[in-house]
């Protein structure tokens, strides 16, 4: 096509497209998928891990899920190093808000603020866009539980359930079929695991290939972000029939 309009992000092609932004979205289409589902009593985020070496220190680092503030977390899909920069930016923005207002930053405002940063890289500076899509999950007193998806263009939307990364179209249509408005958090976990298992390339799903995190309210009313441990995740995968239980050794 018009390759001469590829080199600068800050110009339109004659057809009115921003190629670098589109290429960024292509890059994300090859990355590990992530799914988010909004339920009445929480938000569920599930991610497919691409790096699955036994040598990886899973207890201390996560690949897909990150906590932005006490009341907001996100799942990433795309270039990890780009994601790290944006996650740090989001964390600073959240703290800056709390410093000024002594209140947690409303989730949509945080997403909007980060997306404004992303948009800047599509308009000026001559720098390439970030090759990351996010799924933000959080709670605030204005709108309760919320799920937002954002992409390299700086666009974002509020969703009941969304998918990013590899096979996100297939995942999204599966979610559209099975999602119901009054879904509970437990049902949402089940749905997310089911959909992810169908869209992932690997033949067998084990807990070391996935990450699962939930954002919910404790009985005391505080927002909690919890990453599922590998053991509980394995049990859940068996419970929902996504993996076969380990064979009994005779």
């Amino acid at each position, binding site marked *: 096509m018009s390759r001469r309009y590829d080199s600068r992000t800050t110009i339109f092609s004659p057809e009115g497209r921003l190629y670098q932004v589109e290429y960024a979205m292509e890059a994300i289409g090859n990355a590990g998928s992530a799914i988010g589902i909004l339920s009445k009593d929480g938000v569920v985020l599930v991610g497919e891990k691409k790096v699955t070496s036994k040598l990886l220190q899973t207890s201390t680092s996560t690949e897909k899920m990150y906590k932005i503030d006490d009341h907001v977390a996100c799942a990433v899909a795309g270039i990890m190093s780009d994601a790290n920069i944006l996650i740090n930016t989001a964390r600073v923005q959240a703290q800056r808000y709390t410093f000024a*207002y*002594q209140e947690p930053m409303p989730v949509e405002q945080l997403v909007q603020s980060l997306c404004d940063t992303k948009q800047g890289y599509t308009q000026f500076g001559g720098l390439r866009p970030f090759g990351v899509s996010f799924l933000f999950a959080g709670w605030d007193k*204005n709108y309760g539980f919320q799920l937002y998806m954002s992409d390299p263009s700086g666009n974002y939307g509020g969703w009941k359930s969304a998918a990013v990364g590899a096979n996100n179209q297939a995942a999204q249509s599966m979610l559209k079929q099975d999602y119901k408005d009054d879904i509970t958090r437990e049902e949402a976990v089940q749905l997310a695991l089911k959909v992810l298992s169908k869209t992932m390339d690997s033949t067998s799903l084990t807990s070391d290939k996935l990450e699962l995190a939930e954002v919910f309210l404790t009985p005391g009313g505080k927002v909690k972000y919890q990453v599922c441990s590998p053991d509980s995740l394995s049990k859940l995968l068996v419970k929902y029939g996504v993996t076969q239980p380990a064979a009994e050794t005779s």
Partner: protein
Amino acid sequence: MECVFGLVGNGFSILVADTSAVHSILVHKSNEDKIMVLDSHKLIAASGESGDRVQFTEFIQKNVSLYQFRNGIPLTTAAAANFTRGELATALRKSPYMVNILMAGFDKETGPSLYYLDYIATLHKVDKAAFGYGSYFALSMMDRHFHSGMSVEEAIELVDKCIIEIRSRLVVAPPNFVIKIVDKDGAREHAWRETVKETTAPPSA
């Protein structure tokens, strides 16, 4: 000398301010409204250097409006008070705003509240507060007569007691006061207490 004071009652907050604009020994006007309506459910009463007073309170008011336009939701009184304090604090070590502020508001979830902010960026959430020479009298009267959960009538009685003390005991007492109230129905002017009326026509020959 400027007098500003306020208190929290049962489901409402009240702010009272004198209404004289003074320059050295000259009284420019005695109907200057020093209590600004910050948004539908917040009031801000300011005393101090007159240029700073208007400039700073308008700046805060416009920022509060901007937040609401941008985000579709209003700031809580606590958030607005903390934001204001932050602005005072940032300017403090450069070019301080010589303004003392009482911010009163009503939030649906938390009810009425009153915040004390002085010109060196102190912030306190309080039930009653006062600034200026009149504070010596107003605070003493409130210490004696205030109790939490007062009705509007009881609160206005206490306000009038404070005004009487200020008028009778302060050597250069301001003659007129404005009283504003904020409750679940919003922020509005409640009453004036005038002893000197601004003249609009020259005296008849």
